[in-house]
Protein backbone atom coordinates (compact mmCIF):
# COMPACT_ATOMS: atom_id res chain seq x y z
CA UNK A 1 0.00 0.00 0.00
CA UNK A 2 3.04 2.31 0.02
CA UNK A 3 2.97 2.14 -3.73
CA UNK A 4 2.71 5.72 -5.02
CA UNK A 5 0.17 4.98 -7.69
CA UNK A 6 -2.25 3.31 -5.32
CA UNK A 7 -1.85 6.20 -2.85
CA UNK A 8 -2.81 8.61 -5.62
CA UNK A 9 -5.90 6.61 -6.56
CA UNK A 10 -6.89 6.44 -2.91
CA UNK A 11 -6.54 10.18 -2.35
CA UNK A 12 -8.35 11.05 -5.59
CA UNK A 13 -11.30 8.86 -4.77
CA UNK A 14 -11.43 10.21 -1.22
CA UNK A 15 -11.46 13.85 -2.28
CA UNK A 16 -13.99 13.44 -5.06
CA UNK A 17 -17.50 14.66 -4.42
CA UNK A 18 -18.86 12.04 -6.80
CA UNK A 19 -18.22 8.40 -7.64
CA UNK A 20 -15.53 8.16 -10.32
CA UNK A 21 -14.96 5.85 -13.27
CA UNK A 22 -11.43 4.44 -13.66
CA UNK A 23 -11.02 6.79 -16.65
CA UNK A 24 -11.85 9.83 -14.53
CA UNK A 25 -9.41 8.66 -11.90
CA UNK A 26 -6.75 8.28 -14.56
CA UNK A 27 -7.22 11.94 -15.52
CA UNK A 28 -5.93 12.85 -12.09
CA UNK A 29 -3.32 10.21 -11.40
CA UNK A 30 -1.97 9.70 -14.92
CA UNK A 31 -1.05 6.51 -16.69
CA UNK A 32 -1.18 3.31 -14.70
CA UNK A 33 -3.18 0.29 -13.70
CA UNK A 34 -6.14 2.08 -12.11
CA UNK A 35 -8.25 -1.09 -12.09
CA UNK A 36 -5.51 -2.98 -10.33
CA UNK A 37 -5.04 -0.22 -7.78
CA UNK A 38 -8.80 -0.13 -7.10
CA UNK A 39 -8.89 -3.90 -6.63
CA UNK A 40 -5.96 -3.66 -4.25
CA UNK A 41 -7.64 -0.90 -2.26
CA UNK A 42 -10.90 -2.85 -2.09
CA UNK A 43 -8.97 -5.69 -0.52
CA UNK A 44 -7.08 -3.42 1.89
CA UNK A 45 -10.30 -1.91 3.14
CA UNK A 46 -12.31 -5.14 3.34
CA UNK A 47 -13.68 -5.62 6.83
CA UNK A 48 -12.75 -2.15 8.02
CA UNK A 49 -14.90 0.79 9.05
CA UNK A 50 -14.61 2.20 5.55
CA UNK A 51 -15.02 0.38 2.30
CA UNK A 52 -14.44 1.09 -1.34
CA UNK A 53 -17.24 -0.01 -3.62
CA UNK A 54 -18.15 -0.04 -7.28
CA UNK A 55 -21.63 0.80 -8.53
CA UNK A 56 -22.30 0.78 -12.24
CA UNK A 57 -18.66 1.24 -13.17
CA UNK A 58 -18.11 4.10 -10.72
CA UNK A 59 -16.11 3.81 -7.56
CA UNK A 60 -16.50 5.55 -4.26
CA UNK A 61 -15.70 5.29 -0.56
CA UNK A 62 -18.43 4.72 1.95
CA UNK A 63 -18.68 3.85 5.60
CA UNK A 64 -19.32 0.17 6.23
CA UNK A 65 -23.08 -0.42 5.98
CA UNK A 66 -23.19 -2.45 9.19
CA UNK A 67 -22.00 0.63 11.10
CA UNK A 68 -24.65 2.96 9.66
CA UNK A 69 -26.49 2.94 12.98
CA UNK A 70 -23.58 4.82 14.55
CA UNK A 71 -24.02 7.73 12.23
CA UNK A 72 -27.53 8.44 13.27
CA UNK A 73 -27.60 8.98 16.93
CA UNK A 74 -30.75 9.66 18.84
CA UNK A 75 -30.46 11.54 22.03
CA UNK A 76 -33.20 11.01 24.54
CA UNK A 77 -34.15 13.92 26.65
CA UNK A 78 -36.74 14.00 29.32
CA UNK A 79 -39.25 16.75 28.88
CA UNK A 80 -42.24 17.65 30.95
CA UNK A 81 -45.58 17.75 29.26
CA UNK A 82 -46.98 21.25 28.97
CA UNK A 83 -50.12 22.21 30.86
CA UNK A 84 -52.14 22.34 27.65
CA UNK A 85 -50.95 18.88 26.65
CA UNK A 86 -51.62 17.45 30.10
CA UNK A 87 -55.16 18.79 30.10
CA UNK A 88 -55.78 17.50 26.60
CA UNK A 89 -54.48 14.08 27.55
CA UNK A 90 -56.73 14.03 30.60
CA UNK A 91 -59.77 15.00 28.56
CA UNK A 92 -59.07 12.29 26.01
CA UNK A 93 -58.62 9.75 28.79
CA UNK A 94 -61.90 10.65 30.50
CA UNK A 95 -64.00 11.14 27.38
CA UNK A 96 -62.55 8.88 24.71
CA UNK A 97 -63.19 8.55 21.87
CA UNK A 98 -63.37 12.29 21.49
CA UNK A 99 -62.96 14.73 18.63
CA UNK A 100 -60.77 17.77 18.63
CA UNK A 101 -63.78 20.07 18.66
CA UNK A 102 -65.09 18.26 21.74
CA UNK A 103 -61.77 18.53 23.49
CA UNK A 104 -61.82 22.24 22.82
CA UNK A 105 -65.37 22.54 24.08
CA UNK A 106 -64.46 20.75 27.30
CA UNK A 107 -61.24 22.69 27.81
CA UNK A 108 -62.88 25.95 26.91
CA UNK A 109 -59.71 26.81 25.02
CA UNK A 110 -58.54 25.91 21.54
CA UNK A 111 -55.75 23.39 21.22
CA UNK A 112 -52.88 23.77 18.83
CA UNK A 113 -51.97 21.12 16.29
CA UNK A 114 -48.70 20.54 18.12
CA UNK A 115 -50.44 19.51 21.32
CA UNK A 116 -52.01 16.39 19.82
CA UNK A 117 -48.79 15.68 17.93
CA UNK A 118 -46.83 15.69 21.18
CA UNK A 119 -49.29 13.25 22.77
CA UNK A 120 -49.14 10.95 19.77
CA UNK A 121 -45.33 11.29 19.69
CA UNK A 122 -45.24 10.26 23.32
CA UNK A 123 -47.30 7.21 22.32
CA UNK A 124 -50.18 7.97 24.68
CA UNK A 125 -52.82 9.02 22.18
CA UNK A 126 -53.88 7.45 18.90
CA UNK A 127 -56.39 8.33 16.22
CA UNK A 128 -59.46 6.16 16.77
CA UNK A 129 -61.49 6.36 13.59
CA UNK A 130 -64.09 8.93 12.65
CA UNK A 131 -67.44 9.72 14.11
CA UNK A 132 -70.31 9.17 11.70
CA UNK A 133 -72.03 12.51 11.42
CA UNK A 134 -71.50 16.01 10.06
CA UNK A 135 -67.89 16.56 9.08
CA UNK A 136 -66.97 12.99 10.13
CA UNK A 137 -64.50 14.33 12.73
CA UNK A 138 -61.40 12.34 13.57
CA UNK A 139 -61.56 10.82 17.02
CA UNK A 140 -58.80 10.36 19.55
CA UNK A 141 -58.32 7.75 22.23
CA UNK A 142 -55.58 6.68 24.63
CA UNK A 143 -53.23 3.76 24.05
CA UNK A 144 -52.04 0.77 26.03
CA UNK A 145 -48.82 2.69 26.63
CA UNK A 146 -50.86 5.38 28.28
CA UNK A 147 -52.30 2.89 30.74
CA UNK A 148 -48.85 1.42 31.26
CA UNK A 149 -47.18 4.77 31.88
CA UNK A 150 -49.72 5.72 34.53
CA UNK A 151 -49.89 2.26 36.04
CA UNK A 152 -53.56 1.86 35.22
CA UNK A 153 -55.07 -1.59 34.61
CA UNK A 154 -57.81 -0.07 32.50
CA UNK A 155 -59.60 3.22 32.00
CA UNK A 156 -61.99 2.22 34.76
CA UNK A 157 -59.09 2.76 37.17
CA UNK A 158 -59.08 6.49 36.43
CA UNK A 159 -60.31 8.30 39.53
CA UNK A 160 -63.93 9.36 39.11
CA UNK A 161 -65.28 12.86 39.40
CA UNK A 162 -66.29 12.18 43.01
CA UNK A 163 -62.76 11.00 43.81
CA UNK A 164 -61.37 14.14 42.26
CA UNK A 165 -63.79 16.27 44.24
CA UNK A 166 -62.89 14.47 47.46
CA UNK A 167 -59.23 15.11 46.72
CA UNK A 168 -60.00 18.79 46.34
CA UNK A 169 -59.03 18.70 42.69
CA UNK A 170 -62.36 20.15 41.63
CA UNK A 171 -62.14 22.96 44.12
CA UNK A 172 -62.84 25.99 42.03
CA UNK A 173 -61.52 28.26 44.74
CA UNK A 174 -58.20 29.06 43.15
CA UNK A 175 -59.74 29.48 39.77
CA UNK A 176 -62.49 31.82 40.97
CA UNK A 177 -60.08 33.86 43.02
CA UNK A 178 -57.84 34.12 40.01
CA UNK A 179 -60.77 35.08 37.87
CA UNK A 180 -62.15 37.69 40.19
CA UNK A 181 -58.68 39.15 40.50
CA UNK A 182 -58.33 39.13 36.76
CA UNK A 183 -61.74 40.69 36.41
CA UNK A 184 -60.90 43.43 38.83
CA UNK A 185 -57.83 44.21 36.90
CA UNK A 186 -59.69 44.29 33.63
CA UNK A 187 -62.25 46.61 35.11
CA UNK A 188 -59.73 48.95 36.57
CA UNK A 189 -57.90 48.97 33.29
CA UNK A 190 -61.13 49.73 31.48
CA UNK A 191 -61.75 52.62 33.80
CA UNK A 192 -58.38 54.06 33.17
CA UNK A 193 -59.00 54.21 29.47
Amino acid at each position, binding site marked *: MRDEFTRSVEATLF*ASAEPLTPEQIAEHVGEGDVAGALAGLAQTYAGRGIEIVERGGRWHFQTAPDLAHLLRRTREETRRLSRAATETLAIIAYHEPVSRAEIEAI*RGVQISKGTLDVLMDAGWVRPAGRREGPGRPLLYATTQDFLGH*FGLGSRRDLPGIDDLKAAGLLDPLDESVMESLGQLQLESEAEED
Partner: protein
Amino acid sequence: MDFDSDFDERPLRQSDELTLNLDGWEGPLDLLLNLARSQKVDLTQISILALVEQYLAYLAGARALKLEIAADYLVMAAWLAYLKSCLLLPRDPEADPSPEEIALRLQMRLLRLDAMREAGARLLGRDRIGRDVFLRGSPEGLRQTRKAHWQVRDFDLFAAYGAVKARTAPAMHVVHPRAVMTLDEAIERVSRMIGSALDWTRLESFLPASQDPQYRRSALASSFVAILELARQGRVDLAQEQPFGQLLLRSAA
Protein backbone atom coordinates in the same frame (compact mmCIF):
# COMPACT_ATOMS: atom_id res chain seq x y z
CA MET B 1 16.81 33.24 13.89
CA ASP B 2 16.15 32.88 10.24
CA PHE B 3 14.93 36.08 8.71
CA ASP B 4 16.00 35.17 5.21
CA SER B 5 12.64 33.82 4.21
CA ASP B 6 11.35 33.78 0.71
CA PHE B 7 8.99 36.52 1.72
CA ASP B 8 8.14 38.55 -1.32
CA GLU B 9 10.37 41.43 -0.56
CA ARG B 10 9.47 44.69 -2.14
CA PRO B 11 12.36 45.57 -4.43
CA LEU B 12 13.97 48.86 -3.60
CA ARG B 13 14.68 51.03 -6.56
CA GLN B 14 16.29 54.06 -5.05
CA SER B 15 18.51 54.31 -8.08
CA ASP B 16 15.55 54.53 -10.37
CA GLU B 17 14.15 57.85 -9.26
CA LEU B 18 11.24 57.81 -11.63
CA THR B 19 9.59 55.00 -9.70
CA LEU B 20 10.13 56.68 -6.36
CA ASN B 21 6.72 56.55 -4.87
CA LEU B 22 5.31 56.47 -1.39
CA ASP B 23 2.06 54.78 -2.28
CA GLY B 24 3.60 51.34 -2.10
CA TRP B 25 4.50 51.49 1.58
CA GLU B 26 2.18 50.61 4.38
CA GLY B 27 3.29 53.46 6.56
CA PRO B 28 6.68 54.71 7.74
CA LEU B 29 7.51 51.53 9.64
CA ASP B 30 7.01 49.46 6.52
CA LEU B 31 9.34 51.77 4.61
CA LEU B 32 11.88 51.67 7.42
CA LEU B 33 11.84 47.90 7.53
CA ASN B 34 12.41 47.62 3.82
CA LEU B 35 15.26 50.14 3.99
CA ALA B 36 16.74 48.18 6.87
CA ARG B 37 16.58 44.95 4.92
CA SER B 38 18.38 46.69 2.07
CA GLN B 39 21.39 46.93 4.38
CA LYS B 40 21.80 43.25 3.57
CA VAL B 41 22.68 42.31 7.09
CA ASP B 42 20.89 40.52 9.86
CA LEU B 43 18.35 42.95 11.23
CA THR B 44 19.96 42.59 14.63
CA GLN B 45 23.14 44.05 13.15
CA ILE B 46 21.70 47.05 11.30
CA SER B 47 23.06 50.47 11.82
CA ILE B 48 20.30 52.70 13.08
CA LEU B 49 22.24 55.80 12.08
CA ALA B 50 22.59 54.53 8.53
CA LEU B 51 18.90 53.64 8.54
CA VAL B 52 17.96 57.15 9.61
CA GLU B 53 20.11 58.53 6.83
CA GLN B 54 18.44 56.22 4.33
CA TYR B 55 14.98 57.26 5.46
CA LEU B 56 15.69 60.95 5.35
CA ALA B 57 17.35 60.62 1.96
CA TYR B 58 14.38 58.70 0.68
CA LEU B 59 11.94 61.36 1.79
CA ALA B 60 14.20 64.08 0.43
CA GLY B 61 14.16 62.27 -2.90
CA ALA B 62 10.39 62.11 -2.82
CA ARG B 63 10.19 65.76 -1.99
CA ALA B 64 12.50 66.59 -4.85
CA LEU B 65 9.97 64.94 -7.10
CA LYS B 66 7.25 67.05 -5.46
CA LEU B 67 5.38 63.98 -4.38
CA GLU B 68 2.75 64.35 -1.73
CA ILE B 69 4.16 62.98 1.47
CA ALA B 70 1.70 61.89 4.10
CA ALA B 71 2.01 63.56 7.47
CA ASP B 72 2.96 60.40 9.33
CA TYR B 73 6.05 60.00 7.13
CA LEU B 74 7.07 63.54 8.00
CA VAL B 75 6.44 62.97 11.70
CA MET B 76 8.64 59.88 11.53
CA ALA B 77 11.28 61.87 9.65
CA ALA B 78 11.27 64.56 12.33
CA TRP B 79 11.48 61.97 15.06
CA LEU B 80 14.35 60.15 13.31
CA ALA B 81 16.22 63.41 12.74
CA TYR B 82 15.88 64.10 16.44
CA LEU B 83 17.07 60.59 17.27
CA LYS B 84 20.01 61.04 14.94
CA SER B 85 21.10 64.27 16.62
CA CYS B 86 20.81 62.63 20.03
CA LEU B 87 22.94 59.74 18.88
CA LEU B 88 25.60 62.07 17.47
CA LEU B 89 25.74 64.68 20.18
CA PRO B 90 27.78 64.15 23.33
CA ARG B 91 25.85 61.95 25.67
CA ASP B 92 23.50 63.65 28.09
CA PRO B 93 23.65 61.49 31.21
CA GLU B 94 20.29 62.82 32.30
CA ALA B 95 18.46 61.64 29.18
CA ASP B 96 15.93 58.95 29.97
CA PRO B 97 15.54 56.90 27.97
CA SER B 98 18.99 57.24 26.45
CA PRO B 99 19.27 57.66 22.68
CA GLU B 100 20.80 54.19 22.48
CA GLU B 101 17.81 52.73 24.24
CA ILE B 102 15.43 54.48 21.88
CA ALA B 103 17.43 53.18 18.95
CA LEU B 104 17.23 49.68 20.41
CA ARG B 105 13.47 49.99 20.72
CA LEU B 106 13.18 51.06 17.12
CA GLN B 107 15.26 48.06 16.16
CA MET B 108 12.98 45.79 18.25
CA ARG B 109 9.97 47.18 16.46
CA LEU B 110 11.50 46.44 13.10
CA LEU B 111 12.39 42.93 14.26
CA ARG B 112 8.88 42.38 15.51
CA LEU B 113 7.24 43.50 12.30
CA ASP B 114 9.72 41.51 10.26
CA ALA B 115 9.06 38.41 12.36
CA MET B 116 5.30 38.71 11.91
CA ARG B 117 5.76 39.23 8.18
CA GLU B 118 7.82 36.13 7.90
CA ALA B 119 5.39 34.19 10.12
CA GLY B 120 2.49 35.24 7.89
CA ALA B 121 4.33 34.06 4.82
CA ARG B 122 5.18 30.75 6.47
CA LEU B 123 1.58 30.29 7.58
CA LEU B 124 0.31 30.83 4.05
CA GLY B 125 2.88 28.37 2.81
CA ARG B 126 1.65 25.55 5.02
CA ASP B 127 -0.41 22.61 3.77
CA ARG B 128 -3.75 24.29 3.70
CA ILE B 129 -7.11 22.57 3.51
CA GLY B 130 -8.67 23.03 0.10
CA ARG B 131 -5.33 23.92 -1.48
CA ASP B 132 -2.83 21.29 -0.44
CA VAL B 133 -4.84 18.76 1.49
CA PHE B 134 -8.43 17.83 0.85
CA LEU B 135 -11.22 16.64 3.01
CA ARG B 136 -13.56 13.87 2.01
CA GLY B 137 -15.54 14.94 -1.03
CA SER B 138 -18.90 13.64 0.04
CA PRO B 139 -19.07 12.66 3.67
CA GLU B 140 -22.24 10.90 4.73
CA GLY B 141 -22.44 13.27 7.66
CA LEU B 142 -23.42 12.53 11.21
CA ARG B 143 -26.98 13.10 12.17
CA GLN B 144 -28.34 13.60 15.58
CA THR B 145 -32.02 13.26 16.12
CA ARG B 146 -33.45 14.28 19.41
CA LYS B 147 -36.12 12.09 20.85
CA ALA B 148 -38.18 13.56 23.59
CA HIS B 149 -38.97 11.32 26.49
CA TRP B 150 -42.19 12.85 27.73
CA GLN B 151 -42.82 12.89 31.40
CA VAL B 152 -46.01 13.54 33.28
CA ARG B 153 -47.04 12.27 36.69
CA ASP B 154 -50.46 10.75 37.21
CA PHE B 155 -51.24 13.40 39.80
CA ASP B 156 -50.59 16.08 37.18
CA LEU B 157 -52.98 14.30 34.85
CA PHE B 158 -55.81 14.09 37.36
CA ALA B 159 -55.19 17.59 38.63
CA ALA B 160 -55.35 18.85 35.08
CA TYR B 161 -58.71 17.19 34.56
CA GLY B 162 -59.95 18.61 37.83
CA ALA B 163 -58.79 22.05 36.75
CA VAL B 164 -60.61 21.72 33.42
CA LYS B 165 -63.81 20.60 35.12
CA ALA B 166 -63.58 23.31 37.71
CA ARG B 167 -62.86 25.94 35.11
CA THR B 168 -65.66 24.99 32.78
CA ALA B 169 -68.36 23.88 35.25
CA PRO B 170 -71.47 26.04 34.71
CA ALA B 171 -71.56 28.69 37.37
CA MET B 172 -74.61 28.33 39.60
CA HIS B 173 -75.55 30.93 42.16
CA VAL B 174 -77.90 29.72 44.89
CA VAL B 175 -79.18 32.14 47.49
CA HIS B 176 -80.22 30.28 50.61
CA PRO B 177 -83.36 31.56 52.32
CA ARG B 178 -82.44 33.57 55.36
CA ALA B 179 -84.50 34.55 58.35
CA VAL B 180 -84.93 38.31 58.19
CA MET B 181 -87.21 40.89 59.69
CA THR B 182 -88.30 43.37 57.09
CA LEU B 183 -88.41 47.09 57.77
CA ASP B 184 -92.22 47.13 57.51
CA GLU B 185 -92.45 44.33 60.04
CA ALA B 186 -90.12 46.20 62.38
CA ILE B 187 -92.03 49.47 62.10
CA GLU B 188 -95.31 47.69 62.74
CA ARG B 189 -93.86 45.76 65.70
CA VAL B 190 -92.14 48.75 67.37
CA SER B 191 -95.12 51.12 66.97
CA ARG B 192 -97.42 48.44 68.36
CA MET B 193 -95.19 47.81 71.39
CA ILE B 194 -94.30 51.49 72.08
CA GLY B 195 -97.93 52.42 72.57
CA SER B 196 -97.88 51.02 76.08
CA ALA B 197 -94.39 52.07 77.10
CA LEU B 198 -94.25 55.59 78.51
CA ASP B 199 -90.89 55.17 80.22
CA TRP B 200 -87.54 55.13 78.46
CA THR B 201 -87.12 51.63 77.20
CA ARG B 202 -84.05 49.99 75.65
CA LEU B 203 -84.22 49.17 71.96
CA GLU B 204 -83.31 45.53 72.71
CA SER B 205 -86.55 44.97 74.59
CA PHE B 206 -88.45 45.45 71.37
CA LEU B 207 -86.61 42.58 69.65
CA PRO B 208 -88.27 39.22 69.37
CA ALA B 209 -86.81 36.33 71.33
CA SER B 210 -85.02 34.05 68.92
CA GLN B 211 -82.19 31.51 68.99
CA ASP B 212 -81.24 32.36 65.42
CA PRO B 213 -78.40 34.89 65.63
CA GLN B 214 -78.88 35.81 61.98
CA TYR B 215 -82.53 36.68 62.60
CA ARG B 216 -81.59 38.63 65.70
CA ARG B 217 -79.07 40.71 63.82
CA SER B 218 -81.63 41.33 61.09
CA ALA B 219 -84.26 42.29 63.65
CA LEU B 220 -81.83 44.66 65.39
CA ALA B 221 -80.88 46.38 62.16
CA SER B 222 -84.44 46.66 60.94
CA SER B 223 -85.71 47.85 64.30
CA PHE B 224 -83.01 50.50 64.47
CA VAL B 225 -84.04 51.86 61.11
CA ALA B 226 -87.68 51.55 62.21
CA ILE B 227 -87.21 53.75 65.29
CA LEU B 228 -85.36 56.35 63.21
CA GLU B 229 -88.36 56.38 60.88
CA LEU B 230 -90.83 56.61 63.79
CA ALA B 231 -88.77 59.44 65.35
CA ARG B 232 -88.87 61.27 62.00
CA GLN B 233 -92.65 60.91 62.03
CA GLY B 234 -92.67 62.35 65.58
CA ARG B 235 -94.17 59.23 67.07
CA VAL B 236 -91.24 58.33 69.36
CA ASP B 237 -88.47 60.15 71.24
CA LEU B 238 -84.93 58.78 71.14
CA ALA B 239 -82.14 59.18 73.66
CA GLN B 240 -78.51 58.03 73.91
CA GLU B 241 -76.37 59.21 76.77
CA GLN B 242 -73.04 58.69 75.14
CA PRO B 243 -71.62 57.40 71.87
CA PHE B 244 -72.26 53.67 71.57
CA GLY B 245 -74.40 53.87 74.68
CA GLN B 246 -77.82 52.39 75.18
CA LEU B 247 -80.46 53.49 72.69
CA LEU B 248 -83.56 54.40 74.63
CA LEU B 249 -86.98 55.27 73.31
CA ARG B 250 -90.46 56.14 74.53
CA SER B 251 -93.74 57.11 73.06
CA ALA B 252 -93.80 60.76 72.03
CA ALA B 253 -95.87 62.84 74.37
